[in-house]
């Protein structure tokens, strides 16, 4: 059954149709929330909140856009709200503690783990909007037009944001590399260097 039909049935008050939509998009929304808030538990709660919001307002959705982009927009607004509150109350997540998987397999390659940690740390340093653009573009495969529908603004602005986000991420990753090479060669000297 297509999204259009499922949404139409959900608008008529059929709960199973909406639950079908939940099952269809829960992984994508959860992945987006994970990228944005860098916290698996919070991401799960935010995903559920996003679906509940969508359920409450499903009747106001006129199917002019895709249900997927509409859902992403709700999820991103939930994440922004959460990040705003977290910033307000000073609850910062340490990038070293970010574990986005439920259980770590022991046979995982240590090098890959390290690369992943560095990547998450660099992503966590990006502004929320750039993180959202990168996630939507690279992981969800949205076009610039769809990204502009999710985040607001124009397709051109989404393209510029994506370019800027990639360059900033590259710079952070390069900075992490430089920092780590310096730690290995001269730990005493590097201890005095501010990380940021």
């Amino acid at each position: 059954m297509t999204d259009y039909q499922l949404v139409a049935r959900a608008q008529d008050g059929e709960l199973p149709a909406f639950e079908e939509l939940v099952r269809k998009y829960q992984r994508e929304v959860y992945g987006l929330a994970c990228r944005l808030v860098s916290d698996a538990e919070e991401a799960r709660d935010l995903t559920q909140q996003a679906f509940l919001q969508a359920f409450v307002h499903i009747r106001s959705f006129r199917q002019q856009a895709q249900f997927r982009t509409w859902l992403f927009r709700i999820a991103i607004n939930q994440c922004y709200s959460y990040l705003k509150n977290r910033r307000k109350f000073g609850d910062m997540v340490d990038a070293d503690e970010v574990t986005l998987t439920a259980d770590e397999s022991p046979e995982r390659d240590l090098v890959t783990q390290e690369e992943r940690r560095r990547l998450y740390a660099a992503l966590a340093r990006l502004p929320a909007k750039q993180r959202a653009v990168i996630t939507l573009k690279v992981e969800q495969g949205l076009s610039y037009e769809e990204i502009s529908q999710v985040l607001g603004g124009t397709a051109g602005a989404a393209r510029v944001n994506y370019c800027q986000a990639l360059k900033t991420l590259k710079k952070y990753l390069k900075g992490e590399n430089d920092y780590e090479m310096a730690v290995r060669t001269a730990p005493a000297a590097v201890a005095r260097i501010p990380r940021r």
Partner: protein
Amino acid sequence: MKWRCVLLQRRLPEYLDGELTGFWSRLIKAHLETCPQCQQELEALAQVVQALKAAPVEDPGPEFWAQFNREMHLKLVQTAHEAETSPAPAPKWQFRIPLYLGAPALAVLLLWAIMHFTAAERPVLIQQPQMTQAPTQTLPVPLDEQVEESYALVTMDEGAGAAEMDEDLTTLDLDPVLAQLTEKEREALLKKLRSQEKDGSCVTLPSSVSWA
């Protein structure tokens, strides 16, 4: 860095995605063959994208999603139940009634007030009775109006008679006229004739003198 490199490096992420149009794609491709700096930049960006794609958010597993769906189902049922039991929100049009009807109601009120308070000062147009037109009305009219109308007709007749008398006094033989008049009318006529005689506008008539 050359200006051309700055210009083209802005488009490198799109070049990586293959979303550039033919012109820009050919331009960047030609430039990359000659510019090692831009080649390096492109490789670095490609590595970043590759790293992002290689490290997606891992799936938490079927148990996680089973638990997630159970919780989600309970929350959805609860939300649906609350939506059914809670009173329906008032439709917007109920709040729009005063907005839409307020202005016309105020306008009507103002119009009524203006008409009401200026009605006392408005000049009343009273139709004067037309002297030359003879009354030809045959419709039944109220008693008060009949009295007023008859009075008006009497005055009109009297006026007309006086006018005729003024015109005919010089040549009129008064005796038959006076004989038809009542005592009162006769006195009034003679009084008028005497006043006109004093003015010189009338000559003395033997019959009238004899009457006097």
